[in-house]
């Protein structure tokens, strides 16, 4: 039964991940004044890439990168409960808590660094370095906000954190913590102005430069699922989770649209600037938020 539940969670994450990716392409196209591709496009891209052959090879270490990333994303999805009540769609959340999830969020980028490093492509390595540098700055405000939430709920367990918000969600109870987490969340989502990792005008596609075929598909799928996991995490921590699937979709969608829109109207910071910005503003917000608890 648990296995079926986990499978369902992965399917939902995969489906909604790509659906949101398609919506992202559509919504940003609307901001551009274009129509944008159909929603099926991102699914068919993924499936097409899965049946294609790779055009480059750099040994098994290179292929391990996307695999580790994908396992990080899968575990993330499984450890975050989709709903705040009931038996279904809870995944492994009873076996782990917020701290495990925060730990798993770093697993992917680290694994990727191993793989990309063996390709020897300078742009890939630069992208990874940028990603890791930015990650350090992203984690700081996000951890501050997470710590605040944990202190407030008195537990690191998702169920208890969500239950604590049954009267008032953390977003309104602790707006500063939410702001800190949200800015950092934009960075985690790879949205402007923090999209330094795969900046095409600077480092081609960054870590993804040398990947092709199935492994590119794996990278795309894991990034779609990981995005959904991050949306879930934000909804659970600050918006009190969701009672049923409909509410979950509504809440994640609102959050996702906000991130998309913000990403499409700001210019990209350079790596140093984004680190500086993240360390200054959201971290400061987080610290003040913690002090106000």
């Amino acid at each position, binding site marked *: 039964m648990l296995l079926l539940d986990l499978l369902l969670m992965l399917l939902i994450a995969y489906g909604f991940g790509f659906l949101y990716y398609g919506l992202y392409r559509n*919504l940003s*196209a*609307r*901001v*551009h*004044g*274009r*129509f944008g591709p159909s929603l099926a496009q991102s699914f068919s891209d993924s499936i097409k890439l899965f049946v294609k052959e790779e055009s480059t090879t750099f040994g098994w270490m290179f292929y391990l990168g996307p695999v580790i990333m994908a396992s990080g994303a899968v575990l993330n999805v499984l450890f975050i409960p989709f709903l705040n009540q009931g038996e279904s769609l809870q995944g492994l959340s009873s076996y782990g808590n917020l701290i495990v999830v925060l730990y798993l969020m770093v697993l992917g980028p680290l694994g990727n660094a191993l793989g990309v490093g063996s390709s020897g492509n300078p742009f890939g390595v630069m992208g990874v370095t940028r990603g890791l540098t930015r990650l350090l700055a992203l984690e700081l405000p996000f951890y501050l906000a997470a710590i605040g939430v944990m202190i407030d709920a008195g537990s690191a367990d998702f169920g208890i954190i969500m239950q604590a918000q049954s009267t008032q969600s953390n977003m309104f109870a602790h707006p500063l913590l939410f702001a800190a987490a949200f800015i950092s969340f934009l960075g985690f989502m790879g949205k402007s102005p923090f999209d330094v990792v795969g900046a095409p005008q600077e480092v081609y596609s960054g870590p993804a430069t040398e990947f092709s075929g199935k492994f590119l598909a794996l990278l795309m799928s894991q990034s779609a699922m990981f995005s959904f996991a991050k949306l879930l995490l934000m909804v659970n921590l600050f918006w009190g989770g969701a009672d049923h699937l409909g509410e979950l979709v509504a809440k994640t969608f609102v959050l996702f649209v906000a991130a998309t*829109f*913000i990403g*499409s*109207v*700001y210019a990209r910071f350079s790596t140093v600037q984004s680190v500086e910005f993240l360390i200054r503003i959201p971290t400061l917000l987080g610290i003040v938020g913690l002090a106000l608890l």
Partner: protein
Amino acid sequence: MKFELKNSLAPLSALSKIFEHPQTLCYPEVKSETVSGYRGFHINDLSTCIGCANCQDVCMNEAIDMIAIDKDKNPKNNSGCIPRIDYGRCCWCSLCTDVCPPDSLKLESECIWADDDANRFLYQPKDKPC
């Protein structure tokens, strides 16, 4: 360096664009209006073409061949030849139409031709009265 809050928030006004209808055309279904005088494919009015090869002389890309036609549509065509254009070389400068004495050679708005063999791009201008 001073960054005002206004400059940080003003870019969000761009989002009002989502309430407007997209400006691009859905190409195969909707096509943009053709413009008269567009420099597209060649047309040649064979009833007036005199086969003088002025177009061939002026073409700097040597894109124009004069080829024989079976039946003369025009008694004034002294050479019995009409131009055929290599669209691999043509640059659509329309000098050939400028120097055409009877104004039989023209460019029309039609301008789309896709083919998988480059050697097929030898274009016989359509016989259209202008």
